[in-house]
Structure formats: C-alpha cells, structure tokens
C-alpha cells in the first residue's frame, strides 16, 4: 500500500520518473488490453466484431449503425426546417414530437432514427394541419391552376410541387396515383380545387418519400458502393449544411447534373455555407459537438456559487454557440479553437469572468487577453457543466475532453470492479485532486485514470463555477500533469499539447464526417478522416474548408 501511495504521490520527483516509464507499459495497454477495452484515441467501432456487451451471441438481427441506411428519417429539427422551406409555413409541428435521442455523436444518425406509433400519429396530424393552412384566400400561392377540371394544369402542379416535396422528380405512375386520390377528394363546387390541392399536399407530406431521405441500392441484398445520383447528392448536401431541403438553385443543379461536377458541387457548397440557413450547423453540429446545451441545465450550489445565475448560465451557452458559429465561418486553423484569443460575451458574462466589459447587452466579439481564459476549454459552458454541484470533477472534465476532442471511446469500467465512493470531502482538508489520487490508487483504476484525468488536472485552475482560482479549499490548486508522456505545468501547456496531437485533429474531421453522413463511424472511416485533416491542414485548416473538402470527397458523394 505504501509503495502504491508513494508511486502516486504526484508531487514526488521519483514519481515523475516512475510514471513516465510506467505509462508506456501500463497505461495505454492496461486501458486497452484488459477485457472490454479498445485503444484510447480510437473510436469504438460498432461494426467491429469484438463488441463486449449486450450481445446474446445469437447474432441474429444485429444492426450496424455505421452503414449508410437506405431510408433515413428526418429528425425533428429537419422536419421543421423542411416544412418551413416547402410551404413557407410558420407552423413548427416537430416542436411537439417526442424529442430525438442522440446517437454515437449527433441526433441525425440514420441508424438511430425510428418511427414509433406516436410519431406516426404526429406526422399524420401535422400533414393535415399543414394542408389545412391552404385556404381559398391563399390558394394561388400554391398553384396557378384555377379550376379542378383542368387536368393538365393539375398534373403539372403535382409534378412540380411533388418534386419539391419528395426532393426528386416523380415517376409517371406516382403522379397518376396522387392525382387519382386527389381527384376523388375534390367535391363539386367552388371548393373542388381547394380540396384537390389540400389532398395532394396531405399525401405528399405523409409519404415515406417526404419523411425519409431515400437512397436505394440496385442490389439491396449485396449493395455495392456507388456514386449518389444528382438528387440524392443535393439532399445530402442541403441536409448537411441547412438541415433542410434543397432550394430552387440546388434543384436546378440536380436537374442539369452540374451538382455532380467538382466545380458545381464546390460552388453550391460555398454559397450554401454563406447562406443564413447555414445557422443550422451551429444548432445541429456545433452545439451538440460541444454540448453547449448542458450548461442550460446545470445547477450548482447557490450557496457556494451565488453569482452563477440563470442569466450567466444562458450567457455561457450563447458564448460557445457564437464561438463555434465564428469558427464555421472564419479562416483560421480549427485547432485554434483551443487557444483563441477572442470569444463572444455580453456585459453579464464579461463581468462574471472579471474581464473588461464590452458595453453590450448582447454577445459581441471580445479580445480575451487573460491567457488562461483563452480557448474553448476555458469556456464557462464546459467548465460548469462538467462539475458537481459543490466542487470540480476532474474525471468528468477529463472524460469530456477525451470524448469531445479526442473521439475516445466511452471507456468501460473493469468488469467486476466495486467502485468505492470518494470519501466525504468535508471530513478532510484535501483538494479534490488529492482525494481522487487516493481513490484511483488501485492499479486496476490507475491505468485508465492516468489517461482520463490529466485534462481535468489542467482545468483545476478553474472552479466548479468556471472562475479562476488558486486554491481548492485551503490548499493550492495543482494544475500539473502529464499528457501521453509529456508533462505540462498548467492549462496553457496542456492546450498546446492537445492542439499538436494528431488524434485531436483527426477527431474534428471525424465529427464533420459523422454529422455530414448522419451515421456512426466505422474503422474504414479512420483513414478518410486522417486524410481529410491532412489535406485541409495544408490549405489553412479552417472548419469551413474542412467541411467543403469533405463535401468534395468520394465518401460524401457515394454510398
């Protein structure tokens, strides 16, 4: 016991030497070789056969979440945006739908999106409500036809409107089927045309061709990789950048095939990224990637942290959202998110951080000259949401960095381990870090914790409330640690090490790939992500350039 305690005395010089040699033999291997582990830094691939848990071994009906599904349900955000763009409606029916779950990375993953009877009922009533927004007064907005007897006109209406609703030209048989149903609904008299149009819209919205993005394979039993056709590509592109359907210009590029060319695809990607609808990347990609919503539900002990008010909390969420919005547009290398000397604050937040006020009630860009405060790791949204109510959590902050910036697998506890709780902190004068050290003294725990904890150590300079501190209780804070064998003295050192880690860069690329394709990643995607990052780094390394390069890749243009 004594030996272990000495080994884990972080302040001893001897320990530093011992640790460095132990790490190479103990840490990565013990965290990976023990049962049910994978190498740290590699994503856990659902398609790999060494799935440890939850598999009864019968193998029947195993679902692979890393494949490109053929029927990819719109998620709630996409449903709302699509009906907004298709019908110019103010209705947001999906606000009432059951909240989508989050898959391996995001909430747009095809393998994770299903239709329950409840959701189907909501699709049904939404389709009715949306179709009933069409009235005699606004009918001309939807069709130029004037009478229900003008078959040629109505056929054209179904073809045109249907092509937008289903995001591809309709087959003749489909048009006929729609027309037959609509015609039957058209009662006589002045309402006939209205009934016809409403019934058409109702059908189009309820259809699987609306609620799913469909990508069929010629031989579904044994699908071969193929290039997407023009309409499939257009949809994949618009749902990536806008969480919505293609616009008229993009449909035109699908119709004439120009979307399939490098020049055409690049031009549309560029204009769509610059369009205001690209704000969906902040909500669907950036916010989920950086977990910005979590701070909105973070409750710290108000007795200990009275300044952490709901307004401050909200301001922290907006800070990180604005920050990622900027990085989606700016031209700096994406790794500078970790060290950026700017952020976005309002007076409330700047005052909270103890920084100069920008004299604005709304968030504006501010220079951050306080060096430890620079970069997204020092955002309040991250620091507070990863804390317990009364104290910091080194493990949670470490795990958050691993998952968010290193695409680490969600690590497994050793099987059969009895997790001893941290002793009552009130009973000791020790810092959280010291208490943790006692806790992870067991070799079975040390292996993974030597990897999880260091980012948390670096962040110890910030309290649970996200504010700078030099003491944890009565003892000084210790922000030193070791990242993959290299020691760091403080959060600035740590950031730099993380920034230089290729695994971090590759992880950012992986996040873009996962979101762009709307699926979990498999082992085959590892090389794609690495190549994408390397190519982008040479071109300046910005996030929008990473996105554009990915769009131009074979992976994005194929299935």
């Amino acid at each position, binding site marked *: 016991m004594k030996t272990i305690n000495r080994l884990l005395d972080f302040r001893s010089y001897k320990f530093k030497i011992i640790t460095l040699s132990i790490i190479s033999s103990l840490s990565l291997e013990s965290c990976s070789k023990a049962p049910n582990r994978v190498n740290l830094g590699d994503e856990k691939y659902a398609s790999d056969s060494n799935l440890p848990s*939850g598999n009864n071994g019968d193998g029947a009906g195993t679902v*692979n979440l890393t494949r490109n599904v053929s029927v990819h349900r719109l998620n709630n955000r996409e449903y709302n945006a699509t009906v907004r763009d298709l019908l110019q409606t103010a209705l947001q029916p999906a606000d009432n739908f059951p909240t*989508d779950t989050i898959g391996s990375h995001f909430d747009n993953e095809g393998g994770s999106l299903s239709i329950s009877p409840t959701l189907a*009922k909501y699709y049904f009533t939404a389709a009715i409500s949306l179709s009933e927004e069409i009235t005699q007064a606004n009918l001309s907005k939807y069709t130029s036809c004037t009478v229900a007897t003008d078959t040629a006109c109505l056929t054209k209406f179904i073809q045109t409107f249907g092509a937008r609703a289903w995001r591809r030209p309709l087959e003749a048989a489909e048009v006929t089927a729609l027309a037959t149903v609509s015609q039957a609904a058209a009662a006589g008299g002045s309402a006939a045309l209205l009934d016809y149009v409403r019934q058409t819209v109702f059908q189009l919205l309820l259809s699987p061709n609306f609620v799913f993005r469909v990508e069929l394979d010629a031989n579904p039993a044994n699908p071969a990789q193929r290039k997407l056709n023009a309409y499939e590509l257009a949809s994949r592109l618009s749902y990536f950048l806008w969480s919505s359907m293609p616009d008229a210009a993009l449909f035109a590029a699908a119709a004439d095939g120009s979307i399939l060319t490098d020049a055409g695809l690049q031009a549309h990607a560029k204009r769509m990224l610059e369009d205001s609808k690209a704000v969906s990347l902040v909500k669907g990609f950036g916010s989920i990637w950086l977990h910005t919503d979590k701070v909105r539900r973070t409750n710290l002990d108000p007795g200990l942290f009275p300044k952490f008010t709901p307004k401050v909390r909200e301001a922290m969420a907006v800070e990180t959202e604005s920050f990622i919005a900027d990085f989606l547009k700016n031209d700096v290398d994406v790794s500078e998110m970790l060290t950026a000397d700017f952020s976005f604050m309002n007076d409330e937040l700047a005052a909270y951080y103890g920084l100069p006020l920008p004299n604005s009630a709304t968030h504006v860009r501010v220079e951050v000259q306080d060096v430890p405060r620079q970069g997204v790791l020092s955002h309040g949204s991250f620091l507070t949401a990863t804390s317990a109510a009364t104290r910091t959590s080194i493990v949670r902050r470490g795990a958050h960095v691993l998952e968010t910036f290193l695409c680490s697998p969600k690590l497994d506890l050793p*099987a059969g381990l009895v997790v001893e709780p941290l002793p009552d902190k009130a009973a000791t004068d020790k810092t959280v870090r010291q208490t943790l050290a006692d806790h992870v003294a067991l070799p079975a725990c040390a292996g993974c914790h030597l990897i999880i904890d260091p980012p948390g150590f670096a962040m110890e300079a910030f309290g649970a409330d996200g504010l700078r501190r030099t003491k944890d209780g009565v003892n000084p804070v210790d922000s030193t640690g070791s990242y993959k064998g290299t020691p760091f003295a403080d959060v600035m050192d740590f950031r730099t090490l993380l920034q230089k880690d290729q695994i971090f860069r590759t992880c950012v690329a992986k996040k873009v790939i996962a979101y762009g394709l709307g699926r979990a990643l498999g082992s085959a995607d590892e090389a794609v992500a690495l190549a994408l990052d390397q190519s982008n780094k040479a071109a300046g390394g910005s996030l929008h350039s990473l996105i554009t390069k990915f769009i131009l890749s074979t992976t994005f243009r194929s299935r």
Partner: protein
Amino acid sequence: MKINKNFSRRQFLGTSGTAIILPFLESMMTREAIAQEANKAKRMLCYFTSCGVMMDKWKPAILGDAYTMTQILQPLESMRKDFSVISNVSNLVSKDLVSAHSIGTAGWLTGVDPKPGIQAGISAEQVAAQKIGGMTPYRSLQLSQRLGNRATEIGALSDSTYCDVISWADTKTPLIPQSNPRAIFDTYFSGTNSNDSEKEKAERAARQKSVLDATLSQLQTLKNKLGKDDTYKVDQYMTALREIEKDVGKVTSMTTCPIIDRPEAETASLPGMVSAYPAYYAVMHKLIVLAFQCDMTRFISFMFSPGRSERSFNFAPLNIVENMHDLSHGGGADNNAKQALIQAYEMKMFASILQSLKEIPDINGSTMFDTTISVYGNELSSGGGHTVSDLPLVVAGGGGSLKLGHHIKAENGTDLANFWLTILNNGLGLGLPSFGTLGTKVMAGL
C-alpha cells in the same frame, strides 16, 4: 364488450375540475358485460425511477404483512393493504454490466438484454396494450420527465435511447416518450368540439382513409426495394399507419371528465430552473391521472427521470444541491441520507397518483386504483454499485390474483421477466406462455 349504441359521447370543455364524472364503462356497457368486467384489472401504470435506492431504507426488515414501513415506503403507509413490496427479483439476463444504466433502463420493462444497434424487446405493458388496449383512443402512452437532450454513458450502449426509453413496441422500435406537458395537453386533451355535420365528418374520414391507403401502398413499393437491414424502418411506419387507419372516423372526443387548464408557459417547455421542477412534476402527474380518468388509454409507462439521471432536487423541502447521479456514487452518511430523502420524495409522487386514482370511480363500486396495476421500480438496486440484483419493486392496486399487502421475497433465480409475466398473467389474466428472455413461468408468492 357489448356497447350500448344509443350512448353518445359528448365532451365538456373548459369546466376545469368541476364536471360530473360518468364512469365510461358503466354507461357504455350492457349489464352482462359489466358483471364480466367487475374486479378485473384492466390498466397498467409502469412508474420508473433511476440511480437505485438506499436498500437499508427501502427494504422492510421482515417478510409478510406485519412489517414496519421503511423511510422510502412511508408515503404508501395508508395503502398498506393495497400494495406489495417485492424483494429478490433481479436482472439475470444481462451478463456484462458495463453499461449498467443502459441495461438497467432498457431491460427494466422488457426483460431482455439490450443489444447494440438500438435493440431490446417488446415491453410488458406493450404486450398487454397490443392484446387488450384497443378499446381506448390510444393503446398506450409513454411519458417522461426528461429535461433536455444528452448523450449518456460509457460502453457499447452509449446511444441515449437506452437510458431515455423504457417502452419498446418490438426489438427495434423504441417508443420515445413525451415530456412536454403543453404538447401532451394539446395533443390528447384539448379536444375537437367539431361543428361538422355527420356528412362532413364522414367525408373527412373518407379522405383520410384514402390518403392512408395510398401511403401504405407507397410504403409497400418502397419496402420491395430495400434490403433486410432497412425494411424494419418501413415496417414501423406501416404498422403505425395501419393502426391509425383503424381509428379514422371514430369519435375520439372524450367522455365527460374534468379538463385541466392548459399548462402554463413556464411548465410548457422543459424547465431549466430547478425551482420550476415541482410545478412541472405536478402537471405531468396530473396528466397521467387525466389520461386514465378520461379513458384515453389504459397503458402508461412513465419515467420520473431517465436512466442515469443527473437530476437536481434543489427545491423545498429537499434543498439538496448535489445531483442524483453524483449522490448515488458519493458514499458517506450525508450522501446516503440525501438519497433516501429523494427516493422517499419520488415514492410520494407515485403515491399521489395512486391517491388520485382512488378518488375516481370505476364500475361496480370499485375505483380506478382497484382496476389499475401500478408498478414502481428502478433501473438499479444500488446506484453506487451499479447492481441489478434484488431490484426495488412495488406493486399496487391491481385486482386479479396478485397477492397484495405483503413484503414478498421471490425465490432465487427470479428474473424481471418472471415478474412481468406474473403481472400480465396473474394481474391482467392474459394467459401468456412467456415474456422476455427468461420469463417462462410466473413467480411464486405474488
């Protein structure tokens, strides 16, 4: 069930809480049918809580009916004869507990070991709903008090579905619950006091059916072009639309029952401020009672919190600052005492629903409490140890041949699937041969 065809169901709107209640069945049924229905449980409430319990404050010291009520069970004291607390039922089907919360949650009502790829098995109340849930406007409802979206825990089952869902329609169809009280109210309780004539209603129904038919046809065409890994997605939609088609044209307005006011704006969206939680809980619990009272459905699953909840209880009278999951791993006398207080609070919320059901008459002089089997449980037994053996379970109300009023210890080897089979067969009289993976026989003693 024979229905008196002369009965016309009317709905009273806007008389919050003061309308006269007509028991649905008695007015709708013939005398023979009433006699048949008497004293039979026909409703299920599955009430789920998370992060385990303090076993020493949960489990009574002795078996039988003369035990002293423990701290966490105390809110049920007045109903002592009407519930049983069950010990020694375990999740035996899951061998690898790495993702303990996911397994505990997804396995609780399904009695299976959940698999990667968003897979579990049909949940117990869905089995019942599919068999006997067709008489109400909605076969079942899945509700939850989920405060926002989040990714969850470690291991292969890291998709948040596993911790956010307890009801499953089949192996691949999780029934994502609803947690927005205003949306729930608008969808199920605001009613359509339609002024359409019978002719207009018939025309509307015909139009809807025709669209549903056309859509089903499109789905079949699409299904024929898909590989086996994708067809289940289309099947889910087809199954759902067929159900909707059966109900098109049916009167879905409710019988007379008190309509609550539309939930206020601050409870309409999922609250970020912990001080708003009690009001939110109150309205969600009211909606559960209302759904039963108005016979909108007879099968409700409810998640007080999702699996691995990081819920805060920092409101009066608890005023506990640490969140639930942290407390469950905290250890020490102080943390344990706080956990027990929270768990007793959750039991009090459960008891409040039971109390409300006791005040709603059902047929033949019984109450809805008597004709509802209410089960209270938790994803884990020990939150700190991530254990799923000897899970906390309470069975209340009921009817059928369930043994209530006792602390019952199941024999060794009793899996959750055995427990649910017992509920379904001995409680609801469904006569099923099995349930879940290990549920091939009912448990003794319940």
